[in-house]
């Protein structure tokens, strides 16, 4: 690890050259040591986060037996494409349904279902709380807010029981709906709606927009940066769900990537060489979409923030 980070940080010849160059430069532009320090910290942090991912990639290119013997190394082998193909198309169980592609699709359904469902539900809840003179709106809001104290892990037994009694085990509905209420998102949308000028609502009223029209034509487009932010958070949250899918879906056809990786490394107990290469590929597949979502929406997010004026 230490070697790895050092090599990437500065190629040796540059590392040596850095010292004599610094004083010469000082004449023209003073070197800001604060900035150098900041960058050093940031680069070190980035490498610390990246190293495990680089290890994953490296280990997916060499044969499984070699990983057993030597662990991660700097060697780049030729097993990447075969491993990828195996991971994507070959099932690792009798049912034949736990292929990488299948699990990828399932994870996608879960992540998107969570993100979109949570955004829709919490926007509507926040809309009701902020814009309608409900009798106990504040109370309702704080009740929703206190559910933050009750994450899934705390209420998993009753949640499971309800899902089971409703006959929703092994269904997408059972996987998604019980987790779809989100206090966090409701809270953020509430704060956002409260910052929208009152006059917009009044202007819309005079323009003949009813509650639904105001919501769809004005509030939703105005919230797009907020929606993007919530989408990032909720998609990653849904994608990374482990405990709930493990409990609710026992059918292999509904396994997600996060579940599947676990399944593979269990092979170790069977006396075979575990399929490290394949599970590393699956792990990469599992990491990729959240990263892409963040990268993609982040740009959108910044654009929305700077463009819209409120």
């Amino acid at each position: 690890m230490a070697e790895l980070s050092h090599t990437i940080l500065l190629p040796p010849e540059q590392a040596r050259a850095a010292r004599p160059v610094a004083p010469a430069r000082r004449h023209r532009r003073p070197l800001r040591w604060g900035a150098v320090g900041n960058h050093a910290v940031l680069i070190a942090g980035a490498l610390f986060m990246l190293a495990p991912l680089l290890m994953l990639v490296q280990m997916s290119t060499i044969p499984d037996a070699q990983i057993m013997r030597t662990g991660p190394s700097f060697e780049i082998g030729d097993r990447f494409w075969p491993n990828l193909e195996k991971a994507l198309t070959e099932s690792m169980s009798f049912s034949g349904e736990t292929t990488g592609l299948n699990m990828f699709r399932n994870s996608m359904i879960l992540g998107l279902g969570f993100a979109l469902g949570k955004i829709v539900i919490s926007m509507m809840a926040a809309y009701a709380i902020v814009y309608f003179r409900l009798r106990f709106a504040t109370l309702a809001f704080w009740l929703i807010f206190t559910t933050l104290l009750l994450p899934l892990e705390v209420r998993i037994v009753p949640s499971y029981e309800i899902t089971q009694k409703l006959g929703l085990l092994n269904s997408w509905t059972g996987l998604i709906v019980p987790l779809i209420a989100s206090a966090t998102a409701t809270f953020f949308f509430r704060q956002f709606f409260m910052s929208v000028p009152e006059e917009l609502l009044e202007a819309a009223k005079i323009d003949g927009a009813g509650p639904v029209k105001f919501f769809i034509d004005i509030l939703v487009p105005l919230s797009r940066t907020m929606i993007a932010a919530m989408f990032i958070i909720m998609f990653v949250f849904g994608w990374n769900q482990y405990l709930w899918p493990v409990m609710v879906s026992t059918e292999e056809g509904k396994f997600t990537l996060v579940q599947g990786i676990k399944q593979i490394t269990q092979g170790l107990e069977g006396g075979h060489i575990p399929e490290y290469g394949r599970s590393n590929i699956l792990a990469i597949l599992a990491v990729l979409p959240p990263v892409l979502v963040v990268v993609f929406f982040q740009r959108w997010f910044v654009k929305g923030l700077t463009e819209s004026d409120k």
Partner: protein
Amino acid sequence: MARVTLDRVHKVYPNGFEAVRPTSFQIEDGEFLVLVGPSGCGKSTLLRMIAGLEDITGGTLTIDGREVNSVGPADRDIAMVFQNYALYPHMTVRRNIAYGLANRGTPRDRIAAKVEEAARMLNLTDHLDRKPAQLSGGQRQRVAMGRAIVRDPALFLFDEPLSNLDAKLRNQMRIEIKALQRRLGVTSIYVTHDQVEAMTMADRIIVLNGGVIEQIGTPAEIYHSPASTFVASFMGAPPMNLIEAAFETGAVRLPDGTAVMDAPGGRSGPITLGIRPEDVRLGRGSATFDVALVEELGAHRLLHGKLSGQPFTAHALKESDATTGSHRIDLPFEALALFDRETGMRL
């Protein structure tokens, strides 16, 4: 176009605050009515009740003979221009203007034609595809106007629409709005706390104070015969001089004993005497005005100082050589207004 009638309309906010006391008046078809008054006097509240944005606590509001107390804002056939314009930030100018028409199911080609027409009228044709954020304050103001006029409403409501603009633009928009209203002939209610706007734009002015109507009248009536000391001091820049005086031995006398006017009928007691600065005649007369400061305004000058120990302002033409020091002045009888000292009402 419409006639609007308020009959004992009043407003009590949920917290128990009575923002508008029972108020009755009528606005004629095509009239430009200005509601003016100091901050917090209930102008916006009154306007918003007419718009339907605020519930009417009591009384009846009629627009064109139809009682609209419980009719929603969209169905009152009104359009409103807000102080901060309230443009939809994510929509282009075109969509902003068209939104109200689209919601009413107006056919597309008709919307397009109306938007083009409004844009031409308001000099917005080149900006139709911009977002509000890409417009200047004056242009945003025009878009807000455009949104109001495309719908051909029976009643325009304006809530301090010019107060976010700089002085020069404000003067220009004031004239434009007035001209537009003249041209369209739409009944309008315009809220402002700027008495210059009120004087220049209004057919009739309503002066509000603390939720009560102080006076209703044409700008000239309000200016020349204010109904109370409040109106006298609120309208006009500089405002009417108000000095303490009294009925004494058959005359209205200043505290120093100078008689300014005969008072038949043997009345006595304290009063407040009002006179507009431009009605004061300099250079002769019985009263002595101690000028402490001369304000040069180009077209004329304002002399500030004391009359019989009380703050006083007089208006001097630019050719007069008014300077600081004592001046003889005359307060012409026909320009004087007498107010009850206690109630502030015109005698």
